């Protein structure tokens, strides 16, 4: 560990070797320096100087350049040439200092040059400066040595930490860079230390706050260290954990497995897997661990362990698997055919057994099919439209669709699509059911209903024709015969009157008059029956006249006011249309008389685009919804059917305030009938 304090500086009692072959000069220099507090060793020749340095290296040398024998420059050269002495600062002193001589001295490695005669202050200042410089240099060297030592230690730590934490590596790199910088300046060293501290702090923080259980244990399973998370998830105090063995954390029935684990990690240097942990509270949790053996840099091998709780994940996985199994069972076992279509690629993703059975493709074949392989060309636009809708997120609808089997045969299916996400892709789960039989039954029912309707229309027409024929026969044949009979009776009456009066004649007249009265009654009855069967006025004068007449009769019979809004001229229309309008109006008036309790009725007939529109509205109590929808409203049904048989339509609704409105629209031109 590096400390922030510097190693001890050279003692203030620095040793200075003074070399001068002039004794006065030597004494003067030694005197000055000794008085200043330096320890001075004076020598008077170059040879002696070299010997003195070899015996005990001084902190500084004051060296006279011009000397007998070996001169100062030579001494300087020799000292600087040797590794042991080159670092000693040398100050050259010369009385005849030529510039060349100075340059030579300095080039040889001398630290400084003082010219004689020198001033005492200058000498001392220079000496002090160079001693300080030297001290600083020595101090720097000592630091370097200390750092070197620290470096070695750091190195082992870094190696260890590198394994655990990549981020720490980065910090250490930075520390390493700082360390190199430290070699040149003290500032750099400070930065290095900071970086190191930061790195270690980060590493510790990581471990302390990790959401991963981090621990070490020995090869017996004894816990050596553990992070706070271990305490949190296991429910034991950290102190307690450090006294425990890893087998204590396992559920009782699995504690024996620890030996197997230890054996494995000893053999392979690593082990990972799942373990069933029991917490202090007795709760069982599933953990996933990944442990490694460390043998380097430690006295005894230790195991580095990391583990995390995967109980929830495990449960979710189990639930998912179970759900998947259930889905599979339902999907495969379903009686309905099912497949999943990827909406984007329009490829089939999966299909069930019923699907294979119904369509004749194996599941493998099915996956290679496209939508067009399953439908007739005319059905495709609808299918693609539905796919587009699904892509836009619009809900699909149940639909009846024709499917094509492998052998080309087809069947009707009830299609029930649901939007799902499968493997993250928008897909649609389609369930379908063969409804051929239902469809056939529906078609048969429809055909049957159509036949019934035709039959009913035919019956109605036949009845109308029959009624018309009977009405005419009764009216014409019977009625005319009666008319003739009555004329005869009146003639007889007339002749009898002429024969004179008298009781006998009176009796005869009585008979004749009674007979004539009887005939009158019979005629009235015959006319009424005929008119009820089929009003002759409809065939002879047309719809408008008939409606007027019916309205008049209705008003007379019920006292209910009838307002008419009819065209002046009879519109052109086929006889069947006139009959339908008349019968509907007749039925409506009957209904009003029976149920409505109306005070007035409005009847309007008007031409409208090749059709006629009849509207009858009353101010009675109004038709109820129930009556409208009742199956027993055969009268209303009959009116609808009458209009429908002619390509028209009848509508019944409640009036805005009260009463009932009946609108009937029937085409009057062939083109309109065709269109309808």
């Amino acid at each position, binding site marked *: 560990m590096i400390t922030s304090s510097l190693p001890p500086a050279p003692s203030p009692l620095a040793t200075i070797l003074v070399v001068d072959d002039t004794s006065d000069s030597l004494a003067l220099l030694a005197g000055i320096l000794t008085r200043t507090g330096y320890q001075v060793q004076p020598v008077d020749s170059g040879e002696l100087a070299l010997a003195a340095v070899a015996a005990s290296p001084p902190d500084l040398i004051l060296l006279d350049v011009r000397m007998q024998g070996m001169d100062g420059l030579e001494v300087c050269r020799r000292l600087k040439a040797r590794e042991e002495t080159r670092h000693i600062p040398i100050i050259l002193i010369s009385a005849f200092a030529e510039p060349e001589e100075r340059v030579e001295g300095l080039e040889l490695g001398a630290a400084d040059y003082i010219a004689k005669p020198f001033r005492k202050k200058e000498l001392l200042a220079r000496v002090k400066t160079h001693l300080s410089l030297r001290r600083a240099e020595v101090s720097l060297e000592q630091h370097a040595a200390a750092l070197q030592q620290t470096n070695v230690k750091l190195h082992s730590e870094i190696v260890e930490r590198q394994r655990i934490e990549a981020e720490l590596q980065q910090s250490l790199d930075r520390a390493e860079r700082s360390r190199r910088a430290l070699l040149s300046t003290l500032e750099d060293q400070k930065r290095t230390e900071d970086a190191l501290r930061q790195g270690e702090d980060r590493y510790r923080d990581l471990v302390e706050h990790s959401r991963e259980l981090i621990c070490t244990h020995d090869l017996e399973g004894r816990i050596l260290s553990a992070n706070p998370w271990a305490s949190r998830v296991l429910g034991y105090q950290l102190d307690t954990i450090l006294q425990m063995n890893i087998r204590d954390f396992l559920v009782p029935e699995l504690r024996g497995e620890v030996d197997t684990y230890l054996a494995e990690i000893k053999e392979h240097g690593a082990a990972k897997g799942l373990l069933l942990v029991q917490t202090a509270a007795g709760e069982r949790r599933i953990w996933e661990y990944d442990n490694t053996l460390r043998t380097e840099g430690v006295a005894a091998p230790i195991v580095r362990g990391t583990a995390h709780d995967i109980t929830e994940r495990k449960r979710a996985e189990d639930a998912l698997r179970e759900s998947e199994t259930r889905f599979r069972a339902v999907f495969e076992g379903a009686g309905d055919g099912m497949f999943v279509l990827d909406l984007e690629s329009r490829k089939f993703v999966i299909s069930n057994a019923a699907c294979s059975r119904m369509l004749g493709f194996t599941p493998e074949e099915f996956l290679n099919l496209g939508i067009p392989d399953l439908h007739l060309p005319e059905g495709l636009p609808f299918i693609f439209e539905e796919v587009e809708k699904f892509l836009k997120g619009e809900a699909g609808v149940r639909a009846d669709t024709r499917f094509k089997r492998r052998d080309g045969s087809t069947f009707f299916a009830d299609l029930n699509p649901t939007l799902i996400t499968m493997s993250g892709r928008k897909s649609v789960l389609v369930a379908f059911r063969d409804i051929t039989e239902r469809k056939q039954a529906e078609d048969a029912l429809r055909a049957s209903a159509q036949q019934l309707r035709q039959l009913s229309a035919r019956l109605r027409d036949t009845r109308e024709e029959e009624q018309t024929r009977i009405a005419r026969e009764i009216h014409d044949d019977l009625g005319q015969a009666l008319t*003739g009979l009555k004329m005869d009776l009146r003639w007889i009456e007339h002749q009898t*009157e002429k024969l004179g009066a008298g009781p006998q004649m*009176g009796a005869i007249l009585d008979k004749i008059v009674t007979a004539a009265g009887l005939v009158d009654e019979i005629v009235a009855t015959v006319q009424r029956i005929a008119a009820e069967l089929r009003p002759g006025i409809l065939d002879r004068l047309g719809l408008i006249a008939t409606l007027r007449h019916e309205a008049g009769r209705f008003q007379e019979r019920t006292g209910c006011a009838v307002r008419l809004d009819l065209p002046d001229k009879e519109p052109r229309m086929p006889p069947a249309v006139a009959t339908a309008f008349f019968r509907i109006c007749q039925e409506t008036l009957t209904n009003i008389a029976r149920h409505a309790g109306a005070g007035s009725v409005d009847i309007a007939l008007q031409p409208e685009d090749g059709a006629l529109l009849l509207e009858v509205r009353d101010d009675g109590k109004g038709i109820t919804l129930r009556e409208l929808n009742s199956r027993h409203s055969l009268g209303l049904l009959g009116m609808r059917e009458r209009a429908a048989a002619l390509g028209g339509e009848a509508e019944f609704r409640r009036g805005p305030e009260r009463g009932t409105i009946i609108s009937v629209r029937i085409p009057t031109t062939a083109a309109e009938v065709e269109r309808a």
Partner: protein
Amino acid sequence: MTTILIADDHAVVRRGLRDILAEAFPEANIAEAGDSGQATQLLLKQAFDLVVLDINMPGRSGLEVLEEARRLRPRTRVLVLSVYPEEAFAIRAFKLGAAGYLNKQSAPEELVAAVKRVLAGGKYVTAVLAERLAAVLGAEIEQAPHETLSNRELQVLRLIATGKTLKEIAAELSLSEKTVATYRVRITDKVGLSTNVELARYALQHRLVD
């Protein structure tokens, strides 16, 4: 000499009509047609003073024969007979140029009165119909309904007007009360009135009683 054509497809009715008209107009020359085709042919051949036309004939309808008659013989008067009580037919008939409209069930006296009126250049409708037409057309139609009463009916009307009861009238005329009641109904139908007071006032107004 008056010429009359009876156009009716029922022989019984034709005979009845002929009998009534022959008696009322002994000097008239009466022809018969059994269907519309025959009627048209006769109209082409000969000018009649009057056609008594059944509106309800097979083939082309009586109304078409009426139009044809008006076109072929504008001067010929047409009295339309109908079995239909509805005034709609009457209006149609008059629009097509009929001179009179009469229900076939009407009494012989009415027929005779109608023929007389029409031959004289007038128009004829029954009182009941006149009332309805007036309501429909909004016009008053002048009538002298008692023209249509038979002698016996006129007799009964006078007796009612003098304040006699049906029983008294029956005794005086040697008839049953029921027959007198029937006569009274015929009278009220023909003149379009209903109460005895109204009938008495009517008789006084038309100087039928002294």
